[in-house]
């Protein structure tokens, strides 16, 4: 079997197809020996490991790959893993009530409610941070003056801060959002995984990234890997299999999470996954535009066409 | 002379009862797990107002005896009494000028001499006045700002002596205090000490290797035998209490006692002669 080293920023609901392919034996079927490594140090470090040659594939945010690609490295995106901005936005129940929000409030009302809120995100420059900035921007609020964005670290820190009312809202994926809602009286402001923010519907959030050299040297392995991932994406959406797969992934990766919470999260996050890793140029352009909206450093030097390829996918799905 | 209240007149405090009493005292150290008997069977009385000198071979336990009188450690046999009560750790009635000077290296001469005065809580100006005086007494005038490592060996000793005098205790334990001083200075210091004791009724235990000194300064002299140390003889010095140390060298009595001591201490050499 060919060994493929996956660098992943954390263990979470954002990388399910990889877990599925691993647990369901899709990788094995494709004659791939998958080695999953956690890089808590973040996307930059993961990308560094891939570019340095220690790791082969970085499963993570598209923005990390794009940044690298725009700075003279041969980073390349070879497939879409998740095509929704699956960081949900949860607000303190009290705060939401004060702002007069209900289940039926419109997107505009919800956005406007962010005024004056203390919004917790994981880290500076992270996907959750960008989402917060995006929402404030959409709401016509100045992120410096009309609200405060705080970097609170990982899920535990965010929950700790949220439980003590130290932040008013946060953006983070399942199951943190589910926990906050269930245990700490949170109000689900936006279910982005379900595409509730129209402008971000279909956003290429998580992708399969590698270095050009690797696919040049191992085109066959890359193709087999991508087909296994695609197989996983398809299987997850198959109503006949999805529950069995869910339980298997739960057993292997999330045994400590409350089962009902996990099931809920699975259902919530499923729509965020496409059934094909195919990437369109329009998707790429949207990501670039999105990033350029907030960052001081623009992605000027980026050659979009060189930064991604669908060549590793089976032609049939194109 | 200030008496420490907790020490004063506890019991049968008449003229003949000794100030310091060693009763069948022995001390055993443990060196690398093996016992080492430093002194044994010491019976010794030191009376108020007298100067008792201790002479004996190197390593016979003279310093050990002073340490016990100061309460640094207890004897392993027998008992040591001070004014009738057993000596407890850190006997505050005694001042101790140790064999090594143990000056504080981070304080200059003034600072070192000032320590006991600071502990007593004197005022700044009072302290500096006293220190100045003491520096003159021991001949360190002008060296107040030198640190111990900038002094000569003899000057360090004098600094320690000044510190002892600054403490001004009831009883002085002095372990070879004048060993590093030149003959002239040494004689001056001997006079100073005798004078001090007579004037202020201090009691002194004084260790020396110089038999002339032992006789010149002492009212009595305890002679030790070698290891394990014990007292061979206690020699009375029949010189006048107000003797003039300057003139002693030509005093026949003085010479006789010194020669006598020599014989007690170094019979082997005397035989060879």
């Amino acid at each position: 079997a060919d060994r493929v080293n996956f660098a992943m920023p954390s263990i979470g609901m954002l990388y399910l197809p990889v877990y599925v392919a691993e647990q369901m034996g899709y990788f094995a079927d494709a004659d791939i020996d998958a080695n999953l490594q956690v890089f808590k140090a973040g996307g930059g470090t993961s990308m560094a490991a891939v570019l340095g040659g220690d790791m082969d594939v970085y499963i993570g945010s598209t923005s990390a790959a794009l940044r690298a690609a725009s700075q003279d490295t041969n980073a390349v995106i070879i497939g879409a893993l998740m095509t929704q901005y699956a960081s949900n936005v949860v607000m303190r129940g009290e705060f939401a009530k004060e702002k007069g929000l209900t289940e039926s409030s419109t997107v505009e009302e919800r956005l406007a409610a962010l005024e004056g809120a203390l919004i917790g995100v994981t880290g500076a420059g992270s996907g959750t941070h960008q989402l917060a900035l995006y929402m404030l921007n959409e709401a016509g609020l100045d992120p410096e003056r009309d609200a405060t964005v705080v970097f609170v670290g990982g899920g535990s820190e965010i929950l700790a801060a949220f439980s003590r009312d130290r932040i008013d809202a946060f953006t983070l994926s399942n199951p943190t959002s589910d926990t906050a809602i269930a245990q700490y009286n949170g109000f689900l402001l936006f279910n982005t995984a379900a595409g509730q923010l129209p402008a971000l519907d279909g956003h290429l959030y998580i992708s399969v990234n590698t270095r050009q050299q690797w696919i040049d040297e191992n085109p066959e392995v890359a193709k087999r890997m991508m087909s296994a991932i695609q197989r996983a994406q398809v299987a997850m959406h198959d109503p006949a299999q999805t529950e069995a797969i869910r339980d298997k992934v739960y057993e292997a990766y999330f045994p400590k999470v409350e089962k009902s919470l996990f099931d809920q999260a699975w259902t919530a996050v499923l729509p965020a996954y496409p059934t094909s890793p195919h990437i369109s140029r329009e998707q790429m352009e949207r990501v670039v535009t999105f990033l350029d909206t907030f960052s001081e450093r623009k992605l000027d030097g980026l050659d979009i066409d060189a930064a991604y390829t669908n060549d590793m996918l089976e032609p049939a799905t194109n | 002379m200030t008496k420490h209240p907790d020490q004063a007149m506890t019991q049968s405090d008449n003229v003949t009862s000794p100030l310091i009493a060693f009763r069948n005292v022995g001390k055993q150290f443990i060196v690398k797990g093996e016992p080492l008997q430093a002194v044994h069977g010491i019976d010794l009385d030191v009376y108020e107002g007298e100067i008792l000198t201790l002479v004996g071979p190197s390593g016979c336990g003279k310093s050990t005896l002073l340490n016990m009188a100061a309460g640094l450690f207890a004897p392993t046999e027998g008992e040591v009494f001070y004014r009738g009560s057993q000596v407890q750790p850190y006997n505050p009635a005694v001042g101790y000028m140790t064999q090594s000077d143990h000056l504080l290296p981070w304080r200059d001469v003034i600072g070192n001499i000032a320590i006991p005065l600071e502990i007593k809580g004197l005022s700044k100006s009072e302290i500096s006045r006293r220190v100045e005086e003491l520096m003159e007494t021991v001949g360190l005038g002008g060296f107040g700002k030198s640190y111990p490592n900038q002094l000569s060996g003899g000057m360090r000793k004098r600094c320690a002596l000044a510190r002892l005098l600054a403490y001004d205790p009831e009883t002085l334990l002095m372990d070879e205090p004048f060993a590093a001083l030149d003959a002239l200075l040494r004689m001056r210091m001997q006079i100073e000490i005798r004078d001090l004791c007579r004037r202020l009724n201090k009691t002194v235990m004084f260790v020396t290797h110089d038999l002339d000194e032992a006789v010149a300064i002492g009212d009595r002299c305890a002679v030790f035998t070698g290891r394990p140390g014990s007292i061979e003889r206690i020699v009375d010095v029949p010189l006048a209490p107000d003797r003039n140390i300057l003139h002693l060298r030509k005093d026949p009595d003085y010479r006789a006692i010194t020669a006598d001591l020599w014989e007690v201490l170094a019979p082997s050499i005397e035989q060879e002669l």
Partner: protein
Amino acid sequence: MESLTKTRIWTYRVAFLAFVLISWELASGRIASEFFISRPSAIAEQFFAWVMSGTIFYHGAITLLQAVGGFLLGSVIGMCFGVWLGRAQLVAEVLDPFIMMFYSLPKVALAPLFVLWFGIGIDMKIYLTATIVFFLVFLNTYTGVRAVSREQVAILRLMGATERHVLFKVVLPSAITWVFTGLRLSVPYALIGSIVGELIASNRGLGYLLANSAGQFDTTGVFAALIGIMIMAFFLNATVKLLEIKSMPWRETNSSREMSI
């Protein structure tokens, strides 16, 4: 002559710095991609831009406040504990393994608890920093107090010194080299603590600047923030050193005096 060696030292320092910077500039893009190591000229430019806009001062001030606050808190408590346990042997023996074990915990793993108890404000970062500094100062102070000459203590005791006298006249002066080594060890860790605290939760400070740049994969920004941290470290270190010299006048005499034996 004094100032001559000073100039010489500074010349060497500048030469060394120049050597490092030039090698870096040359290596960048050749030996390693600029994406990872940036280049000194770009970093200088970025840093200068931050200086002009005041960004660096705004963020630096907060980090400095936290670092100094945590440093003071941690080192004062560390010293007190060090002195106390240094004098109380039994308590020290009993507590020693717990202190060591507590200190082996990666603070990052305790982040949720810190957030839970101290929130996400400046105080949390100060406590975090203090926690880190405490240990370094404590262990050095403790060792220093244990190393005090028992003879000197005994001499003072014989003069009727109280525990307070012994402490201030013997123990502290003779342990001071140890204490200051602990303090100097702590300077870098105070900054690291402050920055790690900012990485846990904040929206300002050099740690934020760092994370923000890192989040945007802006290596130049990362290094510019690190330069800010290093400059701060330099000045904090110089301050502690100055304090050290001032507190130990006899040391200076010691090293500049001629030795006689």
